[in-house]
């Protein structure tokens, strides 16, 4: 009997757990450790955050599903990995702190044979003083409760506009190293749509404040694709949408401090500014989960297992150096820890070798560069790939590890720009590969056949379809595995 332990039950962890349970016989254990009772379809938090979707539509409880499927569920926060056992354990183990109501704070230790770290991002609001809804003055849509609270604040702001006030709405990234610009872009245009629908657009200034050096960068260095017989760029295409919808932008910005009603930021040219605001939704930068690693003797080996930001090191080239030296081969393929061959990471939890967008620093030495996004599709594919490798190892097939490098993998992204079945719109993008491979595609870094972008109502229908399909899949409904990651 083998034990597969999965830390985190978000997009990648839940995908891993469900596939592992399906592929492994009942004699093997699949255990999930995750702090929240509910699964959250995060992409639809955008609609919750503008008051267009009730929060219950993006959540469902995990425990009943896991019970039905035969997956052991531990509502807890993993705090340490002991990959060599020790402390009375003959097998490796993970220490976690219970978050289950009634037993909060209790310590549990779970032994494993294989471990997948799917702990995703820790929302690092603390990186910018005053950022975030808990200890700051800005809103967020990164979690379902954040999004629900943001919708209430937005409602109040719209009421002020209706009462005759003119307000400034700022949406974007709250730090120079943020990722997930696509989510900020979506919130901007959903907000703009809602303001128009409420009849207050003329009293609302909408500003997109971003760490991207150009619009349409999205943390992937932008895209080049073909449209109506021309090669165009995501920059031009995105700017066109900003022009059409009357949204203004501040680019290459690092928020250094937020005070009530004022955002302090520095731009790539080193200049510093203050911008007043009435409503702000700013994403936080991400770091890895706060976990430690210890060897058999109890020595702290966290620095070998994780990178400085807390993401788990895998089979990537972390010594690529300057931008000019970056290669597609820097990116991991198997997501296996180089130190422990029974530890893997999937989704945001793996340490990327470097950014995807060109790195930029202001003359003051401030890094203002999007971190590499690892969106839903790559997170799911990586999780499934890692599970396939582990299943092979458990079955003793002797096959080499399966590979899913982000330089060979595409992504389909639908960025909502307004939620309405007849009047909505969304930007539908595909890119292949996610990480440009300039050696294989010297002209544009990507395969023009697999890279595309278009705006329209069809995109909104697509986004809706994805919401329905992914919740269907996540809930383990009949033939759920047919729905691709």
């Amino acid at each position, binding site marked *: 009997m083998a034990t597969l332990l999965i830390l985190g039950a978000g997009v990648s962890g839940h995908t891993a757990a469900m596939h592992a349970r399906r592929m492994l016989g009942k004699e093997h254990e699949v255990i999930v450790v995750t702090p929240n009772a509910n699964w959250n379809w995060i992409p639809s938090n955008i609609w919750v955050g503008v008051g267009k979707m009730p929060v219950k539509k993006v959540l469902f409880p995990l425990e009943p599903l896991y019970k039905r499927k035969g997956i052991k569920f531990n509502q807890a926060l993993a705090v340490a990995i002991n990959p060599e056992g020790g402390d009375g354990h003959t097998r490796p183990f993970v220490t976690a702190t219970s978050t289950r109501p009634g037993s909060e704070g209790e310590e549990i230790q779970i032994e494993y044979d294989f471990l997948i770290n799917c702990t995703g991002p820790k929302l690092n609001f603390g990186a910018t003083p005053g950022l975030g809804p808990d200890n700051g003055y800005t809103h967020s849509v990164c979690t379902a409760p954040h999004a629900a609270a943001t919708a209430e604040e937005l409602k109040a702001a719209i009421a002020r506009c209706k009462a005759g006030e003119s307000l400034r709405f700022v949406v974007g990234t709250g730090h120079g190293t943020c990722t997930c610009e696509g989510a900020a872009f979506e919130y901007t245009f959903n907000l703009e749509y809602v303001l128009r629908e409420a009849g207050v657009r003329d009293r609302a200034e909408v500003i997109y404040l971003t760490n991207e050096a150009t619009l349409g960068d999205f943390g992937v260095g932008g895209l080049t694709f073909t449209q109506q017989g021309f090669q165009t760029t995501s920059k031009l295409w995105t*700017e066109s949408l900003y022009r*059409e919808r009357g949204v203004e932008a501040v*680019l290459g910005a690092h928020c250094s401090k937020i005070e009530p009603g004022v955002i302090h930021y520095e731009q790539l040219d080193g200049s510093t500014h203050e911008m007043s605001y009435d409503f702000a939704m700013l994403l936080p930068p991400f770091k890895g989960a706060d976990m430690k690693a210890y060897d058999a003797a109890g020595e702290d080996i966290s620095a070998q297992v994780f990178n400085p930001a807390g993401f788990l090191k895998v089979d990537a080239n972390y010594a690529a150096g300057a931008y000019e030296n970056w290669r597609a081969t820097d990116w991991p393929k198997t997501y296996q820890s180089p130190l422990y061959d029974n530890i893997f990471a999937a989704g945001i939890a793996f340490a990327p070798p470097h950014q995807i967008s060109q790195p930029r620093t202001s003359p003051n030495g401030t890094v203002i560069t999007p971190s590499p996004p690892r969106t839903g*599709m790559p997170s799911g594919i990586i999780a499934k790939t890692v599970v396939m490798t582990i299943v092979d190892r458990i079955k003793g097939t002797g096959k080499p590890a399966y590979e899913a490098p982000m330089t060979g993998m*595409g992504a389909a992204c639908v960025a909502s720009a307004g939620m309405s079945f007849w009047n909505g*719109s969304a930007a539908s993008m595909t890119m292949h590969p996610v990480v440009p491979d300039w050696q294989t595609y010297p002209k544009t870094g990507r395969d023009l056949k697999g890279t*595309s972008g278009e705006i329209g109502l069809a995109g909104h229908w*697509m986004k809706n379809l994805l919401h329905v399909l992914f919740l269907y899949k996540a809930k383990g409904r009949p033939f759920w595995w047919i729905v691709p*990651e």
Partner: protein
Amino acid sequence: MIDYDVEAQKSIAAAPMPTPQTLKQRKNIFVQFVRFCAINIKMLRVIAASHHK
């Protein structure tokens, strides 16, 4: 126009403005149904090329 990041506002102001015809097409149910099918095919192609072994 805001006086923050004047260069960004200039660049946006110089971007192609969709014509009323284009905007209508982006909402036209028949055109969009065809686009919906086309987007599905494109995405399935990318998905098929991405599930590596």
